[in-house]
């Protein structure tokens, strides 16, 4: 019974999105789907960060770097030709394991590269390693000091990407191939694939939401909130605070990297600006505007704001409007724009229940 009320809204959301797609396609506004897809991948990052910040109370100003780490690993591995090393032992081994794929490059020549699926796995493994390495010492820091450490980590990644030749320096990496997932599904930015990509992106986003909602309402979620409230008290209650914080940090980093990898295949490329500090700050700001410990708020605010700003609705005032909305939402509704609504609903439900009791 507990499971139903939690997942019902997710199902309703999925139905609404299907309706949206059908309506947009019927109205000939298919191009709107493009921004909706990109917004979905960014929303996955925001959702992961929401669990870390809102529930566990640990700030991270470095999630743009994890996003870029995932995207760049996929981009580098799927574009670097291994044809020259065709006969070496490790290439043959990888090929036998099915991790390599022979494809045509832009000019029609045959090249051998890592398959997108294997690159995705490599991206997740690399992110896992980096997140553990950074998270272990960083999560011992608190408050502003943790913010600084994660910000510093993000800047290091950004500078390394910007200054290294094989990550394309300031140009980034382009010509990343599409990812054929099987079952006729392909992650690709071509207009012909747009509708299925809309469902892939939003399907993954809602799946993330459902998983995180379950997690937040489980024993682990309650433990995280205890850590947020009072870490020493949580420790005294026997909650393994350090291990839990690290696990949530790694989980949110993996979500960011996965979204980065998929969006890189969709975009056919990735650029250093993905790891920029302003991008990381934007993710944090979206979590805050969604109401901190509010996964639904984070999803709705981030998807809406990103969609509008990607559509160019705010014109040349894009940043200014984003900043102003941020200030407005946080100062007027610190619990998220949907909290006042939810409170009113709860109050009405309680009133109705009391009225029913009174009648009986």
């Amino acid at each position, binding site marked *: 019974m507990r499971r139903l009320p939690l997942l019902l809204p997710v199902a309703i959301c999925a139905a609404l999105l299907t309706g949206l797609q059908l309506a947009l396609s019927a109205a000939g506004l298919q191009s709107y789907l493009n921004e909706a897809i990109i917004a979905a991948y960014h929303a996955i990052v925001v959702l992961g960060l929401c669990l870390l910040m809102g529930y566990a109370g640990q700030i991270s100003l470095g999630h743009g770097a994890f996003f870029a780490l995932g995207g760049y690993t996929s981009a580098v591995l799927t574009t670097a030709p291994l044809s020259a090393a065709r006969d070496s032992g490790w290439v043959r081994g990888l090929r036998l394991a099915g991790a390599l794929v022979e494809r045509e490059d832009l000019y029609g020549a045959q090249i051998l590269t890592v398959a997108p699926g294997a690159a995705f796995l490599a991206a997740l493994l690399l992110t896992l390693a980096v997140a553990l390495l950074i998270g272990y010492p960083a999560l011992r820091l608190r408050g502003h000091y943790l913010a600084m450490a994660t910000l510093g980590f993000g800047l290091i990644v950004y500078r*390394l990407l*910007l200054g290294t030749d094989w990550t394309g320096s300031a140009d980034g990496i382009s010509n990343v191939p599409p990812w054929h997932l099987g079952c006729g599904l392909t992650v690709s930015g071509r207009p012909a694939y747009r509708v299925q990509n809309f469902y892939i992106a939003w399907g993954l986003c809602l799946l993330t939401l459902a998983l995180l909602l379950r997690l937040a309402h489980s024993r682990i979620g309650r433990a995280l909130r205890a850590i947020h409230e009072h870490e020493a008290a949580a420790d005294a209650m026997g909650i393994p605070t350090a291990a839990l914080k690290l696990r949530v940090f790694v989980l949110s980093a993996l979500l960011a990297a996965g979204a980065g990898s998929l969006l890189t295949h969709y975009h056919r490329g990735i650029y250093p600006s993905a790891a920029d500090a302003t991008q990381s700050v934007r993710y944090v700001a979206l979590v805050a505007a969604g109401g901190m410990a509010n996964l639904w708020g984070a999803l709705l605010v981030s998807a809406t704001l990103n969609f509008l700003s990607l559509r160019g609705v705010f014109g040349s005032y894009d940043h200014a409007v984003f900043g102003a909305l941020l200030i407005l939402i946080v100062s007027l509704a610190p619990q998220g724009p949907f909290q006042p609504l939810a409170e009113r609903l709860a109050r009405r439900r309680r009133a109705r229940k009391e009225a029913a009791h009174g009648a009986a």
Partner: protein
Amino acid sequence: MPDVMQLLLQHAFSGITLGSIYAVVAIGFNIVYSTTGVLNFAQGEFVMLGGMTAVTLAAFTPLPVAIAGAVLLAGLCGAGLELALFRPLRRHSTLHMIIITIGLSIVIRDAALHIWDEKVRALPYFTGDEVSSVRLLGAAISPQVLWVLGTVGLLVLVLHVFYRHTLAGRAMRACASNPEAALLVGIDTANMRTLAFALSAALGGLGGCVISPISMTAYDMGAGLAIKGFAGAILGGLGHPMGAVVGGLLVGLAESYSVLSGIPAAYKDATAFAILLAALFLRPHGLFGSPERESLKEL
């Protein structure tokens, strides 16, 4: 003097110059943080605002007047923003306030882009010009560097006197150590918060003027400075006045010397932050901070 020594000295001077700029921003962070518990991420934007205003004013007024005008404007801006945005907030956590300062920095940056443009400007050198140099211990430095160092030194001194020996300064310190007790002895803590914002903004504005001839002024310079200044404040230990100066200088020196160590110049920021991370992991509360001090003002 051997060449190596001269090289080291030259880098030390450039590091100290960079570092003193970061120190100004770090001091600004500290003034607001210790009085309000808020980290003002728009601190870098005040530096930009000061520089931009001074450049504009300098076109038709003498330089000292332009600088005074810029400092005044930045200070008023800081006070105005505090009055408009932070004073009305009652049930907001510190983290909410910090997010608001982030929003504020985005808005100010974009406003500056629309008021001025994306061009890089600079004030004229206060004395001499870009080629004139002073020999100091065998290293050549621009006179403007001496202006920067002198200003930062003077600021630290003035702030020290202000905090120790004036009523307003002592009231601000009282707010920092215990806001409720300060309220009980009749200090208007709300006004002290406004004063802290105004002071740190004016300070940032002055910093923006002094560094303008060397590091130029552009609408998007604020974010980078805020990050470096934040790094300095954190490294020194938040809320520790001298810590900000030492922290800022260390960040500048790390940046300057990382070039010397053979690491490619493109990675100098990465190196500086790697050192910062290492320092933080070893001393989780900064060089001069103490756990007790921080635990009072958690996020």
